[in-house]
């Protein structure tokens, strides 16, 4: 007369058993196929065909691929990888599906172009990607900025960088720095201040936490390079004057050459190494620095400080 208690009990037990089983198997499957969704991009020989097949839902599909790209990079980054093979295809598919997804071009400029472990070392592909972005979004000044960025930072082609900044400066509502950088780049390629201005603009023009962290890290490195250069110059002058190396920075202070103890951008004092060299105490904290590292130092895999990723 009532629903059978026996059936209810058996079904519930089986249901719970199946639930637990499916959970475990899924966990296992995810390990088996950790790269599966990503490696599939290698089979998509024609992003344009994919766009047609998505039956008008290309925006959503673009978002899926974009999220996969970010996840891919973040996972690899976390593991300290030195190769990012799938980043280019992922970004190319994303932008083919949605050419107006400007964050993708920005991401490409920042992380496709640089050499490992900072990026995928595909500067040429990064340029093609951003040029494609510019063709589809000619009024977005940031894309010209991204292009110039790649030429400046990775390819050291200051002429082309100046061109890119110049094109961008003509766009209505462009950031005023663009014309400045175009001019200065043409004149004074490679200067420290130029680089600082570039990275500051990069930081200000984006909301992407990875790009921001990258910019701050570079700025710190530039600061360190600048500090070390100046300090080593002061030490050389001291040596010239007194005929010996200073034993510590207090000597320089006593000689009136320094007002206060020099601190690195993270607040630690610099080390004065015998022989007139200056080093940072913790080189690992300063990716990208070209001065102030001990001899034979090998930079570890790139890691961003969480606080640098900025308020989200």
């Amino acid at each position: 007369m009532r629903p059978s208690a026996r059936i209810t009990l058996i079904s519930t037990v089986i249901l719970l058993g199946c639930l637990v089983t499916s959970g475990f198997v899924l966990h296992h499957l995810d390990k088996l196929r950790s790269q599966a969704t990503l490696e599939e991009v290698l089979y998509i020989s024609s992003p344009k065909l994919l766009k047609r097949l998505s039956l008008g839902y290309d925006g959503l599909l673009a978002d899926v691929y974009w999220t996969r790209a970010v996840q891919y990079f973040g996972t690899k980054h976390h593991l300290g990888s030195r190769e990012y093979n799938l980043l280019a295809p992922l970004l190319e598919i994303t932008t083919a599906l949605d050419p107006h997804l400007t964050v993708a071009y920005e991401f490409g400029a920042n992380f496709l172009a640089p050499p490992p472990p900072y990026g995928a070392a595909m500067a040429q592909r990064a340029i093609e990607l951003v040029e494609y972005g510019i063709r589809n979004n000619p009024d977005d000044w940031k894309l010209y900025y991204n292009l110039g960025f790649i030429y400046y930072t990775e390819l050291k082609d200051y002429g082309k960088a100046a061109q890119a900044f110049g094109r961008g400066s003509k766009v209505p509502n462009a950031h005023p720095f663009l014309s400045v950088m175009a001019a200065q780049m043409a004149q004074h390629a490679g200067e420290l201040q130029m680089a600082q201005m570039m990275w500051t603009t990069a930081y200000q023009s984006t909301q992407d936490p990875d790009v921001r962290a990258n910019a701050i890290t570079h700025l710190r490195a530039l600061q360190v390079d600048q500090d070390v250069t100046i300090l080593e110059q002061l030490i050389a002058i001291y040596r010239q004057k007194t005929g010996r190396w200073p034993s510590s920075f207090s000597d320089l202070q006593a000689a009136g050459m320094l007002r206060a103890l020099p601190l690195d951008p993270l607040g630690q004092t610099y080390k004065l190494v015998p022989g007139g060299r200056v080093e940072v105490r913790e080189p690992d904290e300063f990716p990208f620095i070209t001065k102030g590292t001990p001899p034979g130092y090998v930079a570890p895999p790139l890691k961003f400080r969480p606080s640098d990723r900025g308020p989200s």
Partner: protein
Amino acid sequence: MAAIEILGLEKTYTVGFWRKRSQRALRPLHLSVEEGEIFGFLGPNGAGKTTTLKLLMGLVFPTGGSARILGKEINDPWVKAQIGFLPEQPYFYDYLTANELLEYYAQLSGVDATERRQKVRDVLQRVGLRDTGSTQLRKFSKGMLQRVGIAQAIVHDPKVLFFDEPMSGLDPMGRREVRDLMEELKQRGKTVFFSTHILSDAESLCDRVAIIHQGQLQGVGAVADLTSSVEGQVEIIWHGGAIPASVKLLTAECHVVGDTVRGVVREANQDAAIDTLRREGLRIISVTPVRMSLEDYFVRKLKVSETAAGVSS
């Protein structure tokens, strides 16, 4: 052993999505049906007849009470093999032929594979659908579907049969055939429990009836008892055109049509009236007990229950 025992079976539905109202479809019902009976379950539409049948078939779960068929609980699979059910206005898989449908049902009822084909043939013959075995059910008329319905209810030779409005939608020929079938089933010793709101069918067929109204049982008993328990009256018809004075006193009513007089007297005064008429030399044509028709009993019972309930459901 009673074929069907209903012990306080009741059903209350909760209706409504946001504010739940309760709707009492069936108040606690106590009823028992003996083996070999044809039992009529009467009531107007919405009285609770179909609800009762669904409860007995295990299609709906009761809010209270229980029932037994052939001495066992309803959901016992053994019981289910011994009963046959014809729902109201049945509909069957229209993509099957009659043969296929009955074979399928026979399979589900556990009829042995060796006997199936024969039983299907037999039962189609019995309901008068002998040559339609290979016709698809979508081509069947309403009457034919009703007969297929009866066929599927009896194909596995059950002991107890439950029919919900078996005569509905049938023409007089069809109704006659169904009545004959039910009589035949009784001859074979089956118990038949059927619901209907057509009283004349019940009157002629049933051994006993129950009347249900607004979910509540109003009366149970043999038709004869129910209809004759109220007034014991006798109708006397005589020729002669005259009404003797003493007879006039005894009659409740008198009709004169030409030479024939029809008078109704109380059963107790029957002999006195006949003697008087004889003495007067009037020729008595017939003396018949007057029964209230089942319909009168029915309507009267319904009125009583309605006034009792304040004429609201």
